[in-house]
């Protein structure tokens, strides 16, 4: 076959020596789209088998005569292969092993590769002998909802006894044993038309649109295009349908604007014409090839979409309908015609529609004898009867299968007809068809409700998402010819909608067929368990019980019985289930309705959604300009949001981080140190109204700030709480340079932009973020000026007089490098922040090390920075936590009374001005050797540890090398009035209570003398 010829030949594998492998007794002598020239070896539950390229695991197992492949969820009933596609409820396996183990993999879609390993799941100790099958005997107890009615006494037994038992028994396959070693990609693409499903209808649509030059993407979840055309012996344009598929595919391949995504399932329709699709790039290979992902998540943005997802056949509900050997009639044809496999040695067919008789014909053509064609309709069309009789099948009309008999395999079926006659029909394969349900799932992702069509006994799409057209079987047009015609129409229309001109082309034609159906939702006098949801073991009886107990809404039905909640998402179960509920509640199916379908339409691996965003690539890493230099110095780094900052620069011989940090602090307090503070948000603000603008966004005044000066600014949110702080410098009459905290850089920028564009659009002001344009280093310590003197160009006068505390200016350093210099201090020492273009940051650090060598210059990290700011009582992240007011952090005086500003009105609310609010204080341990911990709560010294006595908490702590003991900042109720009082810092989660004395938050140089030297 030419389709088989297109299966890419893979390199021969030494292990697959056909001679040592068992033969495939159920492989037909000829036919099918598998590559018989090559044999693949695989194992199932450790046993070796052979198959061919082009097989699914299910097809290969059937070829080898394996019928029992799984166990059901609750009763552990033996189960066989029901379907040949994504709807499979029974045939699930653990595929691969170790960290690549994939639980619950559908054998019906898993492509066979050489060396494939699969294991059955949810059985103990083995598939053939499963002890938990005892549940079947207990099944009268284990009906739907039994667990809601019992296991309540005694109450402690739930977690200790009942639940562990239930959990161990539940679940299906086992997860991998370790981190997923494979790679995943995410990709976004755009097209005019997305065709979902490459069956005949989808191909016709793609051809019609593609020929116009429109950008078309065709997604097919199978590894071959063609859909049912590969499974059914049909003719299109007078040729075998599979040949027509081959030609269509070749033409599509030749069109430059058409892309075909094979093994790609569109699983979600999202807003704005965005579709989510999963491409299984390497699931058909033992491991992904080098540099290839295992799977790729596509976000496809399409102007138009054509949904041609086909239909899914429904099982019939009768006793023992889950026995291995009971298979959907369409699936039987798939195995016969596409895979060249006979799924049984003697068959019967049980159907309520005109379609399934083709299975009788195909079985006979493949040499599988068909004992009987069983149809509940008293009268069947002559054509149907003829086909069945010609195939040698006994035709039983007005007849139903009451029970399929067997255990691990089907032995025979009991049939009864409407005249009361009973028959035993011998067969090991029973092909069943309850009709076809259009695959409408994607159409309801945007909220559309499927509509019931009585004439075809199926739900068809309601309002699809904007831009989507549904065609073919997915739209309820089950006949091949209708699908081809609708496809050609829809493809042409989509192209026209996108502005392409479409030439008239003949619509591909196909032979006529009948799709007449007479619904049969359950066999009334069935005996034994009649399953509706195979995987979750939901029977017709369970649905009756749900109805009886009032769980009549389809959602209640689903939730109470677990109908449709298995890995197959109820693809074969939902319609039968709700039809039974309709019957039991004497409502119509239309009134009963369906549950809402949501993404994904088929299960998708968690890793695929994550793509490359895991491990160290989970989020971007932002590196300050001096990172490489700091790394060379052996700094330890710390995550600060997305930034990675130098935490401390430990030196050999230092016993611990505390020693390092203390050395760094001492160096700054006594000599000079420097620290990269480039991560602080930097925003350039210019314009005639820049000063006015800042007066509005800051709580304190900035219009009065002289040019060449910096000022600490406090910004409130509209609700009156503190948003952020920082220093802002006036570089010119209409030019300010603002800094924000590292954490709030983006938020403040966004806020300023909102103020400028939305609140006060008539202000003449421009805002530009320049955080990444400037490398900014803080150079601090009594010797800072001396070091700086060595690198600034002569024009810079650094004298205290010319450039005093809170001065700001621009100039050049290191012989002409543009620079901004700010005499501001977080450490409380004589300090400067020097900004140079970011590309010079690294060089600046190295130069400072060089010129500062004589002064003992010491690089310091964020820890020392933090210690010094706590020593100085400056609020930072733990105090600016979004829950504090300006008053809380001791900055109430900054709220200007001379002007309006953002947050002013709301800051006056009684809850925000309550004098009992916890307010910033300093804390020091009574026992100077004691360690303080942030997060401790304050209690009055001798009060009981109760919530009523909770008076605030410790926000920040540090060991102060300057003072030689731990110090802390905290928010304490009426704190500033309690200086000198001893309170208890209560820290039960770390088993430590410490008595602390309330002090001023400024521990070092309270007068600020050092700043001004």
């Amino acid at each position, binding site marked *: 076959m030419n389709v088989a010829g297109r299966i890419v030949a893979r390199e021969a594998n030494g292990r697959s020596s056909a001679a040592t492998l068992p033969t495939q007794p159920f492989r037909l002598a000829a036919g099918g789209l598998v590559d018989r020239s090559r044999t693949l070896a695989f194992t199932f539950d450790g046993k070796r088998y052979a198959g061919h390229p082009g097989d699914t695991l299910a097809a290969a197992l059937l070829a080898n005569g394996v019928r029992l492949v799984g166990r059901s969820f609750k009763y552990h009933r033996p189960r066989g292969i029901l379907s040949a596609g994504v709807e499979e409820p029974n045939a699930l396996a653990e595929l691969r092993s170790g960290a690549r183990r994939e*639980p*619950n993999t559908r054998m019906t879609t898993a492509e066979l590769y050489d060396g494939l390993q699969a294991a059955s799941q949810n059985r103990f100790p083995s598939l053939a002998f499963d002890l938990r099958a005892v549940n079947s005997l207990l099944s*009268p*107890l284990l*009906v739907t909802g039994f*667990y*809601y*009615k*019992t296991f*309540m006494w005694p109450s402690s037994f*739930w*977690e200790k006894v009942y*639940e562990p038992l239930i*959990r*161990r028994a539940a*679940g*299906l*396959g086992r*997860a991998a044993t*370790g*981190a*997923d070693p494979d790679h995943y990609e995410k990709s976004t693409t755009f097209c005019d038309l997305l065709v979902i499903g490459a069956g005949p209808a989808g191909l016709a649509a793609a051809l019609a649109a593609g020929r116009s030059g429109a950008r078309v993407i065709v997604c097919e979840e199978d590894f071959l295009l063609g859909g049912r055309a590969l499974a059914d012996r049909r003719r299109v344009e007078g040729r075998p349908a599979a040949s027509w598929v081959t030609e269509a595919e070749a033409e599509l391949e030749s069109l430059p604007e058409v892309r075909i995504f094979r093994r790609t399932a569109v699983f979600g329709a999202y807003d704005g014409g965005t579709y989510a699709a999963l491409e299984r790039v390497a699931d058909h290979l033992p491991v992904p090839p080098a540099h290839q992902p295992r799977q790729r998540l596509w976000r496809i943005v399409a102007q138009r979409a054509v949904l041609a997802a086909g239909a899914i056949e429904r099982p019939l509900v009768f006793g023992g309908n889950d026995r291995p050997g009971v298979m959907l009639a369409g699936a039987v044809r798939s195995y016969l015609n596409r895979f060249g496999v006979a799924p049984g040695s003697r068959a019967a067919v049980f159907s309520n529609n005109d379609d399934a008789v083709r299975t009788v014909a195909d079985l006979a053509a493949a040499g599988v004898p068909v004992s009987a064609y069983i149809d509940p309709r008293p009268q069947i069309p002559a054509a149907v009867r003829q086909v069945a009789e010609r195939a040698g099948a006994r035709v039983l009309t007005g007849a139903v299968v009451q029970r399929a008999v067997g255990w691990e395999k089907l032995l025979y079926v009991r049939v009864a007809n409407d005249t009361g006659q009973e028959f035993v029909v011998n067969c090991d394969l029973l092909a069943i068809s309850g009709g076809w349900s259009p695959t409408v799932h994607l159409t309801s992702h945007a909220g559309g409700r499927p509509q019931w069509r009585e004439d075809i006994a199926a739900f068809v799409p309601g309002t699809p998402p904007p831009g989507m057209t549904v065609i073919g079987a997915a739209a309820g047009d089950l006949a091949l010819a209708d699908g081809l015609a609708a496809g050609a129409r829809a493809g042409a229309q989509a192209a026209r909608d996108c502005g392409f001109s479409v030439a008239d082309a003949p619509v591909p034609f196909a032979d006529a067929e009948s799709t007449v159906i007479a619904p049969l939702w359950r066999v009334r006098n069935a005996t034994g368990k009649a399953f509706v949801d195979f995987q979750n073991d939901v029977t017709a009886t369970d649905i009756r019980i749900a109805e*009886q*107990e*009032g769980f*009549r*809404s389809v*959602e209640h039905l689903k*939730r109470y019985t677990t109908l449709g*909640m298995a*890995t197959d*998402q109820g693809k074969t179960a939902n319609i039968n289930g709700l039809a039974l509920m309709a019957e039991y509640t004497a409502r119509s199916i239309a009134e009963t309705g369906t549950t*809402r379908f949501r*993404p994904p339409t088929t*299960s998708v*691996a*968690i*890793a695929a*959604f*994550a793509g490359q*965003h895991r491990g*160290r690539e*989970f*989020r971007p890493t932002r590196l300050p300009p001096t990172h490489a230099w700091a790394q060379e110095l052996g700094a330890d780094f710390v*995550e600060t949001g997305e930034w990675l900052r130098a935490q401390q620069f430990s030196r050999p011989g230092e016993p611990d981080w505390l020693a390092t940090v203390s050395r760094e602090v001492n160096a700054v307090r006594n000599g000079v140190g420097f620290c990269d503070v480039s991560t602080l948000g930097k925003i350039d603000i210019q314009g005639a109204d820049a000063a006015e603008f800042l007066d509005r966004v800051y709580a304190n005044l900035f219009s009065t700030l002289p040019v060449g000066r910096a000022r600490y600014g406090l910004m409130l949110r509209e*609700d009156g*709480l503190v948003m952020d702080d920082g220093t802002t410098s006036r570089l010119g009459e209409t030019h300010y340079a603002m800094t924000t905290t590292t954490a709030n850089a983006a938020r403040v920028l966004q806020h300023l932009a909102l103020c400028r564009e939305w609140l006060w659009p008539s202000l003449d002001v421009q805002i530009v973020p320049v955080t990444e344009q400037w490398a900014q280093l803080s150079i601090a310590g009594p010797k800072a000026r001396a070091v700086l003197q060595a690198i600034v160009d002569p024009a810079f006068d650094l004298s205290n007089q010319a450039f005093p505390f809170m001065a700001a200016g621009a100039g050049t350093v290191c012989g002409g490098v543009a620079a901004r210099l700010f005499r501001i201090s977080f450490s409380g020492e004589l300090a400067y922040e020097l900004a140079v273009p970011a590309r010079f940051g690294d060089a600046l650090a190295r130069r400072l090390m060089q010129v500062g060598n004589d002064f003992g210059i010491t690089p310091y990290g964020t820890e020392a920075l933090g210690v010094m700011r706590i020593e100085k009582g400056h609020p930072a992240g733990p105090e600016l936590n*979004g*829950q504090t007011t300006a008053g809380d952090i001791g900055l109430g005086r900054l709220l200007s009374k001379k002007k309006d500003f953002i947050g002013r009105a709301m800051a006056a609310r009684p*809850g925000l001005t309550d004098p009992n609010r916890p307010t910033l204080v300093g804390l020091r341990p009574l026992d100077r050797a004691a360690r303080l*911990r*942030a*997060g401790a709560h304050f209690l009055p010294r001798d009060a009981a*540890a*109760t*919530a009523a006595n*909770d008076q605030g*908490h410790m926000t920040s702590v540090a060991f102060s090398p300057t003072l030689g003991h731990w110090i802390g900042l905290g928010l304490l109720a009426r704190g500033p009035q309690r200086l000198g009082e001893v309170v208890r810092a209560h820290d*039960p*989660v770390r088993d430590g209570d410490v008595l602390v004395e309330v002090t001023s938050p400024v521990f070092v140089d309270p007068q600020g003398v050092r700043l001004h030297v």
Partner: protein
Amino acid sequence: MGYDRYSVFSLLRESLRGHAGWGPAWRDAAPRPAYDVVIVGGGGHGLSTAYYLASQHGITNVAVVERGYIGSGNVGRNTTIIRSNYLLPGNIPFYEHSLKLWEGLEQDINYNAMVSQRGVLNLFHTDAQRDAYARRGNAMRLHGIDAELLDRAAVRRMLPYADFDNARFPIHGGLLQRRGGTVRHDAVAWGYARAADRRGVDVIQHCEVTGITVENGRAVGLQTTRGTIRAKKVGLACAGNSSRVAAMAGLRLPIESHVLQAFVSEGIKPLIDCVVTYGAGHFYISQSDKGGLVFGGDIDGYNSYAWRGNLPTVEDVCEGGMALMPIIGRVRITRSWGGLMDMSMDGSPIIDRTPIEGLYLNCGWCYGGFKATPASGWCFAHLIAQDAPYPVAAALRLDRFATGRLVDEKGVGAQPNLH
């Protein structure tokens, strides 16, 4: 009529006679002309309110009216987590009251909602986060609630499969509340409905409220798609749609409706024993008794009444999951859903009277309403019955936005999508 009490004995008896004897879990009541109290919203909160009105306050002439089927809102769509690991004194006692009610729920309502105290573990990844969790844990302990601060080694023993060695944001430790856990969410609605029904409450499904009748500044009843219902008192418990329903009485609320998605994987054998939340991304996960991994993350972040979310949020959640525990990579998501959240302006709920006499408000649950179900009903019932707030809910006032006595756990202010 069925059984007044469920027990292993009733189950055994029924198993012997084909389960023909089970009656409806609750009557499918039709609206009567008048009630003492009508609760709008047959979700967890509305049903529990009705139950506690009957069981705690002896008020049984009560109806719960529900637009769809009961439990069709967030009680049927959540990640089933219960906990009381809150930070602020306005919230802690309320959620602890809820947890205590969960602990005795099954015996109280005679329905196994599978309350499973498997533990809730919040991970932290920085020193600052550790201190914030210590602050929280200490606050819990001061309220008499269990909380343990675990170091990295202790977390590693609990979650050996988490990414400790190659993580962008390494795990430093975690805050564990052992009494936290999960509950079979749908069963909560059904159990309360059944228990309320047994005490005479009318549970009225498929009855949509179209208007609130206000006479002389007092709410006196409802207009519904099934006729007019008079009521001495009306309680709104329709989170997600609170603004729409309150608007029928002319009220504007400090609330936006947002969409939250959540996800369930295919069933797998036991892997994750407790509830885990990731501290460096928005991701929380547990495993259900059926074996599915149940997980979620942040809200989509825009006003929505569409009951569905979008793809970037799904990706964000799964990125968090893979960053935290890459062992779950090959497990497949099989279901997702999107529900409507009442996102309040400070991230905390509102249980209060309204300016309209006889109209009571229970709303603003953000995406934490499930765990609150019992206490919400308990406190709302108390408020409606006694016209005074129940003490543990005293901070959850409607006027707190005007007075500035906010209950803002995250400290992000009046921007609902950030809570």
